[in-house]
């Protein structure tokens, strides 16, 4: 029992929003679609909901054609990144709305809507209109309206993106419990944030420019991104990519930087490659002289945008530090964490998974 998409193409004004997308979503699982803006995530959800129609391809739910079913007859619920509610109705009436449309009696709909509102932490707010609720509460109403239907497919399009940091953290934790109640549903969640995708766990689908570029268990994708593009998307900040060669047991990077060849790359033949290194795998205690182009503080970390002989790159340092723009730091690269990609950008060798970090 699954939702199966095959060779879905959707173009608008000559731009491919979905390019030959084939996916299978199984009941009772949570899928996180990760991709940057305009990667095709929202278009994919809208296509599943029936709001957009592909020019090519097929979509089947439980073995039956799903493309020709109109939006209002699909067993789909959706939460947009904007908090969409019906402003003329109270929170309770908002949540009852899909149930009444489905023909449920008023009393039964009210009971179920109250229970779902309580489940998303909105007990006591039933009679308030959306305009009288905070942003987080409005999104909870929208979420409750999606959950109350008990639809076969639950679509969540970056539901946390318009919330402030604290609310985002809180709702993200709540999601773990909320989704547990949707055992029979296919839950598809889109995000631009790799940390969010990994935290939600289950299966991750990485999209870029309308195409699915990798799919699999979230940690597997994180540990072994199959392409440079995927490595950039799955890491925040994006993985640093350096051009270089493998030559006589060493990695030679631009700017005469020479590193010993780590064991996980030693089966590679000599020649040109592209090497990937996460921002956290560089540190300020080495010999590669680099100039600070930008210094950012994120939570309790410092993110440095640097330029040196090896090119432009990003370094992630635990702790909060201040660096003057234009100042010089000496950087070292951890060769044991280097990813090897072919010149075309395909993964050829990856370091061992960091079990310590992802216990």
């Amino acid at each position, binding site marked *: 029992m699954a939702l199966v998409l095959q060779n879905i193409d959707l173009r608008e004004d000559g731009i491919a929003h979905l390019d030959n997308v084939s996916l299978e979503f199984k009941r009772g699982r949570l899928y996180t679609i990760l991709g940057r803006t305009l990667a095709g995530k929202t278009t994919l959800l809208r296509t599943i909901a029936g709001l957009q129609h592909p020019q090519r391809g097929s979509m089947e739910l439980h073995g039956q054609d799903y493309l020709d079913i109109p939006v209002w007859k699909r067993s789909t619920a*959706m939460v947009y990144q904007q908090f969409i509610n019906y*402003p003329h109705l109270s929170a309770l009436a908002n949540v009852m709305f899909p149930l009444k449309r489905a023909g449920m009696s008023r009393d039964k709909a009210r009971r179920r809507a109250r229970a779902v509102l309580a489940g998303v932490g909105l007990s006591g707010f039933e009679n308030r209109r959306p305009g009288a609720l905070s942003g987080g509460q409005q999104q909870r109403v929208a979420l409750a309206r999606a959950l109350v239907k008990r639809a076969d497919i639950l679509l969540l399009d970056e539901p946390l993106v318009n919330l402030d940091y604290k609310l985002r953290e809180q709702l993200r934790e709540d999601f773990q419990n909320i989704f547990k109640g949707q055992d029979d549903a296919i839950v598809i969640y889109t995000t631009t944030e790799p940390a969010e995708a990994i935290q939600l766990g289950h299966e991750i689908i990485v999209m870029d420019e309308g195409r699915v570029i990798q799919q699999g268990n979230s940690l597997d994708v994180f540990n072994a991104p199959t392409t440079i593009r995927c490595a950039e998307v799955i890491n925040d900040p994006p993985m640093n990519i350096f051009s270089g060669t493998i030559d006589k047991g060493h990695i030679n990077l631009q700017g005469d930087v020479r590193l010993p060849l780590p064991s996980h790359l030693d089966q590679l033949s000599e020649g040109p490659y592209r090497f990937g290194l996460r921002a956290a795998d560089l540190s300020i205690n080495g010999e590669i002289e680099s100039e600070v182009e930008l210094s950012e503080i994120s939570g309790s970390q410092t993110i440095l945008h640097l330029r040196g002989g090896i090119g432009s790159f990003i370094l992630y340092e635990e702790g909060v530090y201040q660096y003057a723009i234009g100042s010089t730091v000496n950087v070292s690269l951890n060769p044991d964490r280097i990813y090897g990609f072919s010149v075309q950008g395909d993964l050829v060798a990856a370091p061992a998974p960091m079990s310590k970090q992802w216990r």
Partner: protein
Amino acid sequence: MKTIYLALKYLAILLWTSFVALPFLWALTTSFKTANGVTGGATYIPWLQYKPSLEGWKVLVRTGGQGIDIVGPYISSAIVTLSASFLSLALGTLAAYGLSRFSYRLGFLKNSDITFFFISQRIMPPIVLAIPFFLMLQFLGLLDTIPGLILVYIALLLPIATWVMVDFFNNIPRQVDEMAMIDGCNPIGAFVRVILPNSLPGIAVAGLFCIIFGWNDFFFAFTLTFTKTQLLPVAVVALNSSVTPWWSLSASALVSVAPLVIIAFFVERFLSSGKMAGAIR
């Protein structure tokens, strides 16, 4: 400096308020005067400066002899205006929703051109429309009848209703319609159950415009009626004779404007902004 600014500000407000309110005050005092009271110079305070009289008001309901009965034209105007406004609003709202939500293309014409085509009917001078309307009503046998006037007024009010509502619907995010459809409404259900209840401010504005334009129209009420049917603006003008009866004209002006003031008072509560707050963020 601040004091001078405040003084100037309140002076400007006072001047404008006087400009708007004084004609009403003038009409109110004049409606209670007699011929002597009007010609004897400017007076404003009843009992002190002039002796109030109901003569001007009596003329409005007198039949035969002097004056004119405006009760009949009043009812006719109300029927024509309310019917035409209601139908224009109903048709205009549907047309506007279509123009706002669906894409139409007829040759090089697109939605924006169609919307402009609607309003362009109000750009040309009414005299241009008078002859075609006259001929059409004559052909239909509806000259000098209330249904004929309703038909003409719908043609005049529909562009206003459509134009106001297109703009209003354009400001309601499409995602609200989409969400209603995901929640089980077909497109008409989404319109009726979700979009329409949230469009009351727009409908109120469009309705008020329709009623004001319909109620105040003199030109078509004059050119398309003769003896059987008479609307209020024509009846008011008919009060005028060789001697202008300022007192009854003032009374009729107040009676004419009264329903609009009352309607505006009730509609105003729908005009407050923020009705769509909570739809989308």
